[in-house]
């Protein structure tokens, strides 16, 4: 079954989940212990960045694998193509944040507040990068560029199904795909860092870390790979993708395993270096998270390193649906929590400061006073910040449903198996030593 039909009962289910998410999102506007409706806005930003990022990473995966002459992934690349196009709704999702910034509806970013910047020499120094104009046009132009590549990649890939003549035209389509993939990689490398700094790192507006962009990209990579595994398992149970065997799942499991270790490596490098050097401007970031968000701080490490490491260490576990699905769900939520922890504490601080500032009127905070206020770890427990509440979970389900609806809808638009890809034969007979290719579905193990 190479054609995919998106059944209406599934559509209904996903639309229901989206409505649930929307309701939760609206409720979080009102049910907030913190000022400036920051729970609502930070939830919205968190999920928008997370799911748009997964779209970006999907394109990155296609580009990287194509450039590296990988053959095994071709049988499932239509899924990644569909996921990469989520960049389009992703860009639309950013529009409320951008409009909200210009309209002063939210205080997610301290640097977007002209008065705060005027009183703060550090923010003043950053103003030529951290400003509304850059945020707006950076987002539009850079995400727009990503969309161009994802779109082009999709177009050529589908054209190959119809027009590709294989050996006879020397795989002309594939060679064009390779060119786009190779050009995309450096663009992605430079531009994703700039976006991550603006979207996420600048929430803690004074803080900086050179590793941050690479760290948060590794996080998205795992989330994207885990989501792909889950989606493929689901689609396989629906009777599609019969050619995806436990060998393919084995390789995807390896990626989740390996990049989880890589993520931990990044986490450790960033944390340890900051802990070791003990420079106040830097340690504040972890100090705050360690003191006030300790449950999440450790949950992050357990969900994204300890558990997946031990589950996926064994080869058999990468080939069996049970452990693989469990690990995938775990790391998907784990990295969602990782982004939660990147965004929420800073957003909450910013909102509290902005509220205090509004209350004091145009008080002349000097810098030292300002810093002292930030350091004071006297926050009460706040649902939706210290831990994700039911509303946050509902919102995540809503966004996820939207993502899946979009992806499944894209899948109906092309054959699930690319027809004239030069590597398709390799992909259909993929085997992982010492397991033979014939073994199917991951359910033959005793």
């Amino acid at each position: 079954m190479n054609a995919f039909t998106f059944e209406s009962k599934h559509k209904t289910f996903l639309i229901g989940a989206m409505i649930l998410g929307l309701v939760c999102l609206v409720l979080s506007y009102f049910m907030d212990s913190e000022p400036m409706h920051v729970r609502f806005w930070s939830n919205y930003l968190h999920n928008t960045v997370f799911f748009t990022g997964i779209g970006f990473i999907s394109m990155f995966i296609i580009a990287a694998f194509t450039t590296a002459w990988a053959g095994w992934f071709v049988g499932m690349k239509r899924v990644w193509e569909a996921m990469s196009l989520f960049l389009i709704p992703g860009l639309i999702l950013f529009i409320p944040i951008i409009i909200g910034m210009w309209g002063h509806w939210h205080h997610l970013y301290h640097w977007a507040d002209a008065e705060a910047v005027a009183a703060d020499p550090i923010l003043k120094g950053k103003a030529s990068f951290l400003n509304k104009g850059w945020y707006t046009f950076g987002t539009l132009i850079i995400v727009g560029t990503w969309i161009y590549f994802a779109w082009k990649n999709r177009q050529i890939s589908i054209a190959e199904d119809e027009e590709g003549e294989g050996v006879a035209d020397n795989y002309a389509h594939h060679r064009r795909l390779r060119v786009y993939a190779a050009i995309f990689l450096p663009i992605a490398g430079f531009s994703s860092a700039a976006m991550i700094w603006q979207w996420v790192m600048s929430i803690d507006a004074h803080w900086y870390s050179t590793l941050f962009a690479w760290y948060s990209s590794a996080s998205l990579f795992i989330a994207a790979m885990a989501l792909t595994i889950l989606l493929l398992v689901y689609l396989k149970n629906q009777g599609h993708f019969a050619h995806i065997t436990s060998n393919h799942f084995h390789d995807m499991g390896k990626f989740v395993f390996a990049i989880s270790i890589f993520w931990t490596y990044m986490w450790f490098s960033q944390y340890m270096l900051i802990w070791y050097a003990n420079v106040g401007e830097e340690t504040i970031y972890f100090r705050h998270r360690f003191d006030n968000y300790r449950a999440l701080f450790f949950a992050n490490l357990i969900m994204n390193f300890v558990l997946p490491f031990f589950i996926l260490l064994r080869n058999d576990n990468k080939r069996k649906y049970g452990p693989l699905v469990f690990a995938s769900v775990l790391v998907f939520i784990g990295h969602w929590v990782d982004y939660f922890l990147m965004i929420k504490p800073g957003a909450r601080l910013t909102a509290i400061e902005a509220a205090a500032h509004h209350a004091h009127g145009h008080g002349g905070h000097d810098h030292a006073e300002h810093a002292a206020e930030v350091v004071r770890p006297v926050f009460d427990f706040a649902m939706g910040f210290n831990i994700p509440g039911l509303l946050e979970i509902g919102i995540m389900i809503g966004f996820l449903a939207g993502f899946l609806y979009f992806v499944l809808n894209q899948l109906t638009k092309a054959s699930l198996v690319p027809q004239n890809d030069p590597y398709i034969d390799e992909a259909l007979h993929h085997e992982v030593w010492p397991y033979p290719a014939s073994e199917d579905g991951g359910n033959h193990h005793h």
Partner: protein
Amino acid sequence: MKRSPNKDVLFGLYNDETEILSAVHKAKADHLDIYDVFTPFPVHGMEDAMELSESRLHMAGFVYGLIGLLTAFLGMTWIFTSDWPIIFGGKPYWSVPAFIPITFELTVLFAAIGMVVTFYTICGMGPGVINPTLHDRITDDKFCLAFDVTNASDADKSKFQSFLEKTGAEEITQKQI
């Protein structure tokens, strides 16, 4: 270190890995007891054909690694919390982040050395060990299938002989090793 010969084997040489693979499959189907197969490189599918049990080397590696991990981490913990506590750079005595690099290195070191030593030991190899080989071209381009005929009857021997002939082996020889 050379051991004295104690075994008679009958072997034949094949020219290609596909030939020896099908010969091994056929031998299994005919319930012939193969002594061993010797090849110039690892032949894909041979472990299935020979019905070899999965190597458990990785389990051993895990245990060695764990020993290394505990040695390093507990060792540093003991030294810096009770044997000779010293403050370095204003850090607590028990500075877990600072212990991680060495803990990781020793985990890998123990696992690697342990596994390599285990590998050579269970394979009966090592510096200066000389194991008998059947033919000099086995490490070049010949694929060798051997039967143990130490206590075999003449009927069995001729059965092996004709099996080797039928499956396309050349230079069928009996040798004491």
